[in-house]
C-alpha cells in the first residue's frame, strides 16, 4: 500500500501547473467557449510536445507508458484551469479503446497521429434510442444508428463507433466525414463541445472493426471506467478551486466592518466545504487506483466515486456561489464556470443518482460491503 506521489508524479503535476497557470485567462476562456471552434489547436500542439497526448500508451506504440495516476494528475490540472480541449475524448476514450482492442498495426497507424497531435478521436457509444447495429456485407459492414453526447466529436477526424453485431458489440473506426455520417455539434453547459452523430448505412471495410474483435464489451466498460476516474480527477480540480476561491473571498470581503471569514456561521460552512473536498479527493484516488484491480472492486470504486464526488460537487458549487453572494451568480468571476463544469461532471457517463444505484447494488452483497479497500490482488 502506497498512496504518495513519487518524484515523477510531482514533476508532471508541476509542469502541468506551470503551463496552464501561465496561460489561464478567464476572459479569454469566455471568448473561446462562446465562439468557434471552441478549442485551441495551438494548445493541443503544446500538449503533444510535452508528450501528454501519448502519456498512457505503451512505449512500443510511441507512448510513455503512464498509468491512471499520471492521467489523474493531468486531469486535475485541466479541471483547475478550465481546459476544454478534447483530451478525455481523444486520449483516454479513443486512444484507450485503440490501445485495448487494436492490433499492433492498428495501434501504430491510429495512435501515431494522435500522439503527434495531428488528429483527434471521439467515442460514439451512447445510443439516442434504438441500439446502433452493424450488418455484415460483402467485404465489410454497414452501420446504422444514432449516437448522443459524443464528447469531442466536432473536432475529431476519426470516430470510434460501438455497434451491435448479433449478440455482441464491436468498435468500428469511422472517418467523421464518411458518407452516411452526420455530426450535429453543440456546446455543453461547461463550454466543451459534443455532438449527436447519425449513422445511416455507413459502409465500412472489414478492417474497420477494431482488432477484428467482435466482443469488445468488457474492453469498452474498462475504458469508460478509466474515463470516469479521469473525469473525477478533473472534478477535484474544479472543486478545490471553488473551495479555495471561496475561502480567499471570505478572507478579503468586508461587511459590517469585518471580513466574512470572521463570522463563525460562515467559518463552519467553509469547513464543511473543505471536508467535502478532502472526501471527494479520497474517492477520486480510490477510483483511480481501483482501475487495475478486480472487476467487482473496480465497479464498486468507480460507481461509488462518481456518486460521492457528484454529491460533493453539488454541495460545493452551491455553497461557493451562496457564500460569494450576488457576484458569485454572475460571469464577472470564473466561479460560475467551475460550477457549470461540475454540473456537467454530475451528468456525464451516468448521473450521480444512476451511479449511486449501481454502487448500492454492489454493496447490497454483504460480503462486498464488509470488504476493506486494501486487497491481495494488486
Amino acid at each position, binding site marked *: 500500500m502506497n498512496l504518495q506521489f513519487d518524484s515523477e508524479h510531482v514533476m508532471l503535476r508541476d509542469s502541468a501547473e506551470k503551463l496552464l497557470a501561465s496561460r489561464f485567462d478567464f476572459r479569454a476562456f469566455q471568448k473561446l467557449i462562446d465562439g468557434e471552434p471552441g478549442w485551441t489547436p495551438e494548445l493541443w500542439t503544446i500538449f503533444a510536445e510535452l508528450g501528454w497526448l501519448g502519456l498512457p500508451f505503451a512505449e512500443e506504440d510511441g507512448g510513455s507508458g503512464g498509468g491512471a495516476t499520471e492521467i489523474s494528475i493531468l486531469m486535475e490540472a485541466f479541471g483547475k484551469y478550465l481546459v476544454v480541449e478534447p483530451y478525455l475524448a481523444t486520449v483516454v476514450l479513443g486512444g484507450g479503446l485503440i490501445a485495448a482492442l487494436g492490433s499492433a498495426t492498428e495501434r501504430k497507424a491510429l495512435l501515431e497521429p494522435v500522439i503527434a497531435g495531428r488528429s483527434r478521436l471521439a467515442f460514439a457509444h451512447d445510443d439516442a434510442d434504438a441500439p446502433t447495429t452493424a450488418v455484415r456485407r460483402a467485404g465489410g459492414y454497414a452501420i446504422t444508428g444514432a449516437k448522443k*453526447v459524443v464528447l469531442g466529436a466536432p473536432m475529431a477526424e476519426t470516430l470510434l463507433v460501438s455497434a451491435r453485431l448479433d449478440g455482441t458489440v464491436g468498435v468500428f473506426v469511422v472517418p467523421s466525414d464518411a458518407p452516411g455520417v452526420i455530426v450535429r455539434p453543440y*456546446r455543453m453547459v461547461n463550454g466543451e463541445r459534443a455532438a449527436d452523430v447519425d449513422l445511416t448505412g455507413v459502409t465500412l471495410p472489414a478492417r474497420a472493426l477494431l482488432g477484428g474483435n467482435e466482443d469488445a464489451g468488457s474492453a469498452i466498460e474498462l475504458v469508460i471506467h478509466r474515463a470516469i476516474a479521469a473525469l473525477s480527477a478533473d472534478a477535484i480540480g474544479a472543486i478545490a478551486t471553488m473551495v479555495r476561491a471561496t475561502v480567499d473571498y471570505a478572507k478579503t470581503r468586508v461587511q*459590517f466592518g469585518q471580513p466574512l471569514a470572521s463570522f463563525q456561521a460562515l467559518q463552519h460552512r467553509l469547513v464543511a466545504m473543505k471536508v467535502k473536498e478532502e472526501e471527494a479527493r479520497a474517492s477520486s484516488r480510490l477510483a483511480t487506483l481501483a482501475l487495475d484491480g478486480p472487476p467487482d472492486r473496480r465497479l464498486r470504486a468507480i460507481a461509488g466515486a462518481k456518486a460521492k464526488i457528484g454529491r460533493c460537487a453539488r454541495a460545493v458549487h452551491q455553497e461557493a456561489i451562496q457564500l460569494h453572494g*450576488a457576484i458569485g*451568480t454572475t460571469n464577472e468571476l470564473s466561479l460560475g464556470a467551475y460550477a457549470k463544469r461540475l454540473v456537467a461532471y454530475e451528468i456525464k457517463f451516468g448521473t450521480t443518482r444512476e451511479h449511486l444505484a449501481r454502487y448500492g447494488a454492489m454493496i447490497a452483497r454483504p460480503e462486498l460491503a464488509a470488504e476493506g479497500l486494501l486487497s491481495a490482488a494488486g
Partner: protein
Amino acid sequence: MDLSLSAEDIAFRDEVRRFLASNVPDAMRRAHDLTTSFLDDPAISIHFHRALDRRGWSVPHWPVEHGGTAWTPVQHYIFDVECGRAGAPVYNSSGSHFVGPVIMHYGTAEQKAKYLPRIRSGEDHWAQGYSEPGSGSDLASLKTRADSDGDDYIVNGQKIWTTHAHKSNRIFALVRTSREGKRQAGITFLLMDLDRPGITVRPIIGNGGDHEFNEVFFDNVRTPKSGRVGEENHGWEIAKYLLEFERGGSVIAGRVRAQFAKLVRMVGARCPGDPGVLARMAEIGTDLDAMEMLGLTVLSELQTGGHPGPISSLLKLRWSEIRQSICELALDAIGDDALRWIGERPLYENLQLPQEDEETLAVTLRYLNSRAYTIMGGTSEIQTNILAKTLVGL
C-alpha cells in the same frame, strides 16, 4: 377554523380566471414559460400590465384613491394563485411594490401626481439603486454621493445589482448626502431619470446567461432636488420601510405552486419511475404546502387587522429555497439533456421546437439563475440573522 372559500371568493376567482383567459394569450404564456430569469421581459409583460391597468388591477394593493382595489387579503391570494396557474408574466415590482408605496407614504403631492399614475399604467419602469460593490448586505456603508448645488444634486458613484436598469427609465437610489454622525444618518432617498447625462449602465450577465442585473455609474450627474423623497439625510428610515415590502414580498404561493406543477409534469414525462426523484418531489411538495399554510395564517391575521411580524423574513428564506429546490430537481429529472447550452436570448425568440423540448432546454439555465434566489432581496444569511433576533429572540 376552515380553509374554505366563500361564495364571494369563488365568484371573484371565476372573474379573475375569465380575465386571464382573455388576456394571457398562448404566445405570452410560452414566453413566460421560456423565461429563465426571475422577471419576464418587459416587452412581454407590458401587454399584461396594460390589460391589468384597463381592468383597474395593475396595482391592486394600492389605496383606492391611487387606483388600487379594495380586495381582501384572500382576494389578493386568489389573484396570485390564478396568475400563477395562467402563466401570466411577472413584471418588475420596483414601481408598484417598492417606490410606489414609498412615494405614497413619504412623497410630496407633486411627486404623487407625477409618478403614481405612470407606475399604475406601466408607462414608467423603475430600477432600484441600493447595493454598491462594497455595500451588499451591509447597505449602510454605501458611498455614492449627492452633493448639493442650488436646486440640484450632483451625483457621483456606482450602484450594482440594479435589476432591469437597461429596461427602465427611472431609478430610486440611496445616496450619501452627509458623512457626519452615524453611517445611517447621512443617507438620502432620491428619484432620478435614467436618461440623465453622466449615467452609464453596464450589463452584468448571470451564470445562466441571463441579463437581469447591471452596474449603474454616476459621473457628475445633475438631478433636481425635487426628486428627493422625505428630508435630506432621512433616507435610511425610508429604506427600512421599503425593505419590509421587499422581504415580505407579495404572496407568491401561487407562482411557486404553478412552478411545482410544471415540475410534476416534467418528471411524469421524463423519469416517472425514478424513486429518488419522486421522493424528493414529494418532499418539496410538503414544504410548499407548509409554506402556503404559513402564508395563509398570515393572511388570516391580516384579515382581522393583525401584523405578520417576523414571519416575513421566514417566508423570504424558505420560499427562495423551495423555488431553488424545484429548479434543482428539474435538472436531476432530465438526465443528459441538461448538458446542452443555449447561448442566445430570449429563448422564446430563439427556439422553435416542440414545447417539451423547449422547456427541457430552459432547465439548466433556470437552475443556474435560481442560485440567486437566496441572495437577491436580502441573502438567506441576513434573513437568518434577522430571524435569530425577531423569531427566536436571541
